[in-house]
């Protein structure tokens, strides 16, 4: 039983990791034809950063993800607070709307965004990408922040008001210190969703507004090259970094509630 258990878990783990590890390994291969191993090299990373298209895609990814994450974090946090604080008629509908972006297949979201922007005659570009990203990020931020809010005793806001806190003091002294870990992990989740997103960006991007995933998709369709391996490794790096910060935030929050 014990051997069975360990071998199954080991198999699952290798299945999940090995292909990606091989990919990363190949990004350091000196050979142009990714088949044989011809020694360790950073040349494909250099090549990756020499291509103006790649650099533009990187810059676009940065602009889109940072702006959309900031906006979605603010909006999502506000919504979480509002849902925690107020009871009102039709709250179930708001909850449904909140889960829509989580549950609607991405393809449907993507085409509906395209249809919407065409209908309002917006020019597709970075702005439309950002607007679309915010729309699907908000829910994830709200759900993350709300998960943290639910750990608190009810009435904390009322208690603060009772003790004389105005709106600013309430935010500064109570909500921000309590919610900071939740807001940060929500923001990081939103960030990674934006950075990794392909479909919605693909449908709402104008010509020349490729982000990294869209650029990668175009390159992959052309064939396997060491440059794409390097791009992949870069994408993974960003994901790991985000995950790492997120886990650290949660851990410090759990260790000391301060």
């Amino acid at each position, binding site marked *: 039983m014990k051997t069975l258990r360990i071998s*199954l*878990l080991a198999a*699952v783990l290798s299945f*999940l990791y090995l*292909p*990606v590890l*091989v*990919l990363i390994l190949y990004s350091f291969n000196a050979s142009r034809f*990714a*088949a044989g191993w011809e020694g360790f090299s950073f040349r494909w990373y250099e090549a990756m950063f020499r291509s103006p298209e790649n650099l533009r895609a990187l810059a676009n990814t940065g602009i889109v993800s940072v702006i959309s994450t900031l906006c979605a974090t603010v*909006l999502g946090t*506000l*919504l979480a*607070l*509002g849902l925690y604080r*107020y009871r*009102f008629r039709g709250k179930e509908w*708001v909850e449904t*709307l*909140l*889960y*829509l*972006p*989580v*549950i*609607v*297949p*991405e*393809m*449907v*979201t993507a*085409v*509906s*965004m395209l*249809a919407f922007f*065409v*209908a309002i005659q917006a020019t597709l570009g970075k702005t439309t990408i950002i607007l*679309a990203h*915010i*729309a*699907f990020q*908000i*829910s*994830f931020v709200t759900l*993350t922040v709300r998960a943290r809010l639910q750990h608190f005793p009810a009435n904390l806001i009322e208690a603060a008001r009772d003790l004389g806190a105005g709106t600013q003091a309430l935010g500064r002294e109570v909500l921000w210190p309590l919610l900071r870990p939740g807001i940060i992990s929500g923001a990081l989740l939103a960030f990674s969703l934006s950075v*990794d997103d*392909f*479909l919605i960006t693909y449908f709402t991007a104008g010509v020349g507004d490729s982000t990294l995933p869209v650029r*990668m*998709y175009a390159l*992959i*369709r052309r064939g396997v090259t060491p440059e794409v391996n390097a791009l*992949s490794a870069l*994408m*993974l790096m960003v*994901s*790991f970094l*985000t*995950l790492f910060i997120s*886990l650290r935030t949660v851990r410090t929050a759990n260790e000391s509630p301060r």
Partner: protein
Amino acid sequence: MRLSSNRLLTLGLPMAYLGVFFAIPLAIVLIYSVLTPGDYGGIVWAWSWEGYAGLLSADLAVILLRSLRVAGLATLICMVIGFPAAWFISQLPLRAQTVWMFLLSIPAWMNLLVKNYAWIVLLRREGLVNQVLGVLGVETPPEWLYHEGAVLLGLVHTYLPFMILPLYSALERLDLRLLEAARDLGANGFQVWLRVVLPQCAAGLWAGFLLVCIPAFGAFLTPDLLGGANSTMIGTLIQQQFLMGRNWPLGSAMSVSVMLLVWLALVVFRKAAGKSGEPSLI
């Protein structure tokens, strides 16, 4: 109402955003699905059931059935691998559980494109797998990529963590004394599983089902990159209607049907989860 400005800020602003940039776009797709396709893409404002009529064509039925089959199979495989994996982890000492769940949640954060591309690197004709096979003396290895099997592999690889995570959180909460109680009352091993373990983690199973089946059903990248001409799925078809075939009403009608199927799955989920405690989607 006092504090109405706060209420407007905390509820009104984000809700307005979600309404305008999420609900209205979905509504537009719903409307487009009953309009007439334009000659060069876009739509003409005239009622028409052409979009939905197009759904009934034989080609489309094949693709729809394939999407259901592939998504269903992917979910089933994820469950078959994921359930014992989650069960084994939940039986480990607490520290080991944390480590294993950490290791299993990292792949959930990996980029979908990268995960799919990794299989291309491994499995293409001159890829690593075939090289190894060549060294071992296999001269004509099978074609690994560009068919339904490859799509299935890619989907399972992508979504397996999303099956294990909710299953684990359900199994972790399982009260082991219940198993002992069931044994004490004369249940055999199989009965304990069927009558005690499964019902207790029904919510986890359903959450896993939704987290795997819905995205797999609407998948675009995996069939596009790993599949071939004969393994097109509904996601690709929708994309083609909007970006290539330029039949927006047909694409919208497909999107609406996909939404209907998802909605159906959710209703069933609600019923099932309602019976066995909190749904845990995130």
